[in-house]
């Protein structure tokens, strides 16, 4: 058994403007009421949090065990992002006088077992996590280089739960592991999505990964790697309407994260040739590989747009959803690794 507690302290320091905001109807921008200047070194706001943790491991017999854990964590930095891709424009904001630090409580239980004289390892885990003071933004927020972005932020709560399974074969000519996670991550924010739970941008239902190695000879190893991830959600306009010939996207019920990015999957193969044994000054290893062997066009991001053409009054405006793939083809590779003695 293991337990402990961490005391964390975060201070939002001066040398900057401090903004105060008034009240606004839910989901609308809060009006700026005051700007004061905090001197450098002055503490504008500080937070003190206890972060207890606890874990327990019970050996059931020689080859199996049971684990349980609980922990609470505080995070003093928040990610604000509206794109589905990880782009250089991810915006981070610290906890401030307007934004509380995020708090998370997680409980997990797991079962571990080895089979056939430790040739196979199996593990299964279940977790449940609740989060408070998560942030989201109002519809139509202006997130980039906006000094007053705190007035467009909403606080809410989140929950994430799932199951993780893993099987691993460690010995023999054929080895590898298979892992699978079934998960859900959701948020509830007043003023977003009709005040109903919605999937967070990290929500990935299935996540499967298979990695295998097969030793052809003492020096040659064939390996294969397959990954499959469900698409994460993003927000698209669900309806549209005409106004003076313009076709205007609209989001009924302020839906958030209502569209799934297509699933991601990929198979890579490689052949590794190790050096001949012997006492040489350097050792070289060849690796021949093919990445994304079946040329899957995996999405980096998706977005929607309308045709920019000039339309006549009796003509419909055309719209489409676009998938952007960064690597839409297979990539062969040859690499040579060497070490000097």
């Amino acid at each position, binding site marked *: 058994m293991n337990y402990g507690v961490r005391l964390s302290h975060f201070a939002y320091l001066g040398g900057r403007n401090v903004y105060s905001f008034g009240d606004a109807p839910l989901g609308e921008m809060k009006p700026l009421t005051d700007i004061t200047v905090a001197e450098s070194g002055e503490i504008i706001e500080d937070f003190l949090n206890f972060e207890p943790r606890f874990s327990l491991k019970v050996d059931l017999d020689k080859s199996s065990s049971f684990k349980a854990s609980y922990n609470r964590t505080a995070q003093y930095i928040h990610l604000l992002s509206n794109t589905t891709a990880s782009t250089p424009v991810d915006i981070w904001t610290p906890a401030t006088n307007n934004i509380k630090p995020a708090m998370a409580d997680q409980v997990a239980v797991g079962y571990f077992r080895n089979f056939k004289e430790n040739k196979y390892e199996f593990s299964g885990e279940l977790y449940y996590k609740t989060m408070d003071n998560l942030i989201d933004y109002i519809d139509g927020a202006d997130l980039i280089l906006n000094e007053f972005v705190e007035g467009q932020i909403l606080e809410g709560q989140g929950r994430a739960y799932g199951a993780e399974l893993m099987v691993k074969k460690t010995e023999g000519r054929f080895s590898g592991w298979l892992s699978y996670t079934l998960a859900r991550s959701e948020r509830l924010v007043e003023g977003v999505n009709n005040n109903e739970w919605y999937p967070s941008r990290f929500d990935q239902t299935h996540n499967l990964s298979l990695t295998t190695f097969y030793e052809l000879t003492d020096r040659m190893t064939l390996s294969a790697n397959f990954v499959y991830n469900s698409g994460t959600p993003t927000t698209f*306009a669900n309806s549209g309407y005409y106004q003076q010939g313009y076709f205007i996207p609209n989001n009924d019920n302020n839906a958030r994260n209502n569209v799934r990015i297509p699933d991601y999957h990929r198979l890579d193969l490689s052949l590794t040739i190790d050096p001949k044994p012997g006492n040489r000054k350097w050792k070289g290893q060849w690796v021949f590989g093919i990445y994304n062997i079946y040329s899957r066009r995996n999405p980096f991001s998706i977005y929607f747009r309308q045709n920019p053409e000039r339309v006549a009054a009796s003509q419909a405006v055309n719209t489409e959803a676009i*998938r952007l*793939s960064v690597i839409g083809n297979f990539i062969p590779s040859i690499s040579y690794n060497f070490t000097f003695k």
Partner: protein
Amino acid sequence: MNQFKSKYILPLLFLSTVFYISCEDTIEVDNGFETPQIVVDAWINNTIDETQSISLSFSQDYFDNRLPDPITDASVVVSTETNTFEFVHTSNGTYNWTPPSGERIGDVGETFTLEIQYDGQTLTSTTTLNRVPEIDSISIYFEDQPFGGDEGLFAELYARDLIGKGDTYWVKGFRNDTLLNRPQELNIIYDATFDAGTEIDGSTFIRPLRFAINALDDDGLPRNLDPGEKVGAEIHSISNEAFRFLQIVQEQTTNGDNSIFALPVANSKGNVFKENGDRVLGVFNVAAISKMEKIVEE
């Protein structure tokens, strides 16, 4: 050294030859569209003798790529303190009212109320007819750096914002009588600039807005004019609500250009309401218009 080259350079070259192939494809997505909503398209003006139209339709799935379903059996009435104007359905969801000869719907400063009866519901909206400045001139000149387009003849619209803050206008450009209606060509003005909060008032429209009466090509670049072509411009006075509405329209309809850096989805907020206070899609605006045309000379 020679040995080093032959043994390592070739594999290193192979290694660095990485085929990065990025591509864009059109895909099908399910956006969860459920219920069509009533849409009110009521942008009218007080031009003398001009027939005024209001259109009623339903919203549709964003990806339907079709014209909307019309609402043909509503009653549409616009009224002022002293007059009532009945708009009569003509075809395909369009309701018309034609002023008696030599007359118009009202004057600057008057308040107008729109009332629509449809399917047991009453939709209403109120707006004021705002003032509009005269167009001073359309100037045609040779420009060698036209915001990314090819050099040539271009037009600029000269008009001076009226003194007093909060005037909002929608400038429509025409080329050979064709309305410039690409989303990228939408040109709205707050006092003489893009938006409120600039301290600029009562001055000539700033240059990007003057220049925005030029047509754009498929690449979004300004297209130059040929001698003999006709340039037209209209300034419509719009309410501040209509300006905010069009500002979001402008942002959202051109958002695809931003691809992965797209702005969050935002709804344009109209000014038509149901009896229970719920907002209906669309806008009611009554504009005063000033216009000018010019033929490009040799």
